């Protein structure tokens, strides 16, 4: 058996403020195998975004070890693509340039990846929008551009920090389908942070359930459902999974029993 691609062992995170120390994450241990999509679901402020940022090397951890591909994470990682809650596009550049900024900053060959960028945009239904500026796009379209940007350099790892958080319900469903489709094409190792139980179950191979702050892992559920999973044809097992996860949150006092 090969080593898991990402390993977190007893990871702690304490934020120091001027007057206080806030324990964001306590003793978090989990693995992500290669080509596996793992979702972390938990209430607001449980440190799930902190975990993603620690994996990306953007936030330092105060205890434990994180490794990606056997290498210790101690600085910002670049062998990955990140999708944030907001699209964070460059307002002053058009859609295609916003995707290719990834290539540009990395000093990779722009002409080589332009085709890839156009294909990705087409894949998410944005062909014909290449020369539009972000302010001409809807929220959902912007988020699709940011998905293309996260994938254009073909990274081995995809990190998603509540990618549906600022979208309306219908757009969320569509974009979660986009992400599943793109993920199934290349089966990248992926970490999804969300506070939506159905979205976690729909997309993930395994769902990690977090407690309120300080964030600890209370359970990990393997989701054994055939792909592609679709919002319009969910079977009974989907509801069982979401029910089980909901029950865990109820036991944690996150969801009221009534």
């Amino acid at each position, binding site marked *: 058996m090969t080593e898991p691609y990402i390993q977190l062992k007893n990871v702690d995170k304490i934020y120091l403020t001027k007057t206080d120390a806030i324990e964001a994450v306590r003793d978090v241990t989990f693995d992500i195998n290669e080509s596996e999509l793992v979702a972390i679901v938990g209430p607001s402020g449980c440190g799930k975004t902190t975990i993603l*940022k620690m994996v*990306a090397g*953007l936030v330092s951890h105060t205890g434990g070890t994180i490794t990606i591909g056997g290498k210790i994470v101690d600085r*910002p*990682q*670049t062998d*990955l*693509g*990140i999708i*944030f*809650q*907001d699209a*964070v596009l*460059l*307002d*002053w550049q058009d859609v295609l340039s916003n995707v290719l*900024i*990834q290539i540009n*900053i*990395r000093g990779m060959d722009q002409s080589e990846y332009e085709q890839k960028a156009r294909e990705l945009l087409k894949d998410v*239904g944005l062909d014909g929008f290449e020369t539009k*500026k*972000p*302010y*001409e*796009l*809807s*929220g*959902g*379209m912007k988020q699709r551009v940011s998905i293309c940007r996260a994938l254009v350099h073909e990274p081995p790892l995809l990190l998603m920090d509540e990618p549906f958080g600022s979208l*309306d319900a*219908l*757009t969320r469903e*569509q974009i979660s389908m986009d992400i599943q489709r793109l993920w199934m094409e290349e089966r990248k190792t992926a970490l999804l942070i969300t506070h939506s139980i159905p979205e976690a179950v729909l997309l993930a191979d395994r769902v990690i359930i977090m407690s309120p702050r300080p964030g600890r892992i209370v359970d990990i559920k393997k989701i054994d459902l055939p792909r592609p999973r679709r919002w319009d044809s969910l079977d009974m097992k989907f509801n069982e999974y979401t029910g089980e996860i909901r029950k865990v949150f109820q036991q944690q006092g996150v969801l009221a029993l009534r």
Partner: protein
Amino acid sequence: MDKETIPQELLDQRKSDKFNELLRKRLLPVIGITIFLVIWEVAVRILELPSYLLPTPSEIAITMVERFHDLLQNSWVTAYEMLLGYFLAIAIGVPLAITITASKTFDNFITPILLFFQTVPKISLAPLFLVWFGVGTMPKVLVAFLISFFPIVIDTAVGLRSISPDMIDLAKSMGATKQQIFTRFRLPTSLPYMFSGLKVASTLAVVGAVVGEFVGADKGLGYMLLVANSNLQTALMFGTIVALTVQGLILFYIIQFLETMLIPWHITVRSGKEQEFGTM
């Protein structure tokens, strides 16, 4: 949607909407100003107000034509002082703002000093500059510089800090160097803020130059205004004020034009141009 399938009525509607908007935006202000001038003219004539109290617009216009040469010559002087002060403020203010946002230590060192000097009424320093630098160009440039300096520094610094933490994380995940984060992400993000500071400063720079001239000068529009004042040439005073206003407006619109050229994505520039695709 295909262009061909858009109903003709809608296109016609848009055309007439555009025409109406042009009418509203261009013509209405002109009509408004004309009405204001006519009322002024008529009121002064009916009330038989003496010209040294309130001249009629026509009288002001005639004086401006008669004294056009003087007005123009003095305008150049004031414009020179104003522009020199303004560009000096940009040349020092923008790099200062960059340094403040780049270094926390420098920020803590310089910001209290800046805040202190910002509170000092810059105009009150004009007599002091007269003592130090005499009646030449220098004191006027300095007042124009000081008065336009603070909006530029402060707005640029705010702009440079306005970048979202996610954007910086994104840049880091791409392996961007500090320099790249600054030039490719932080600086472009700050432009809308920087320009709002530049626009405020452009209207202040002219104030600075005129106040500098009030305190002690032998040329310039501020000087001309004082001379007209002491001779009770009220029509000429109005003419000078008009010349000053035009000068301020020209600078303001040049900056605004640069803004539309450089940052067409910015919301205040864009307002009115509606772009809506709905959610896809």
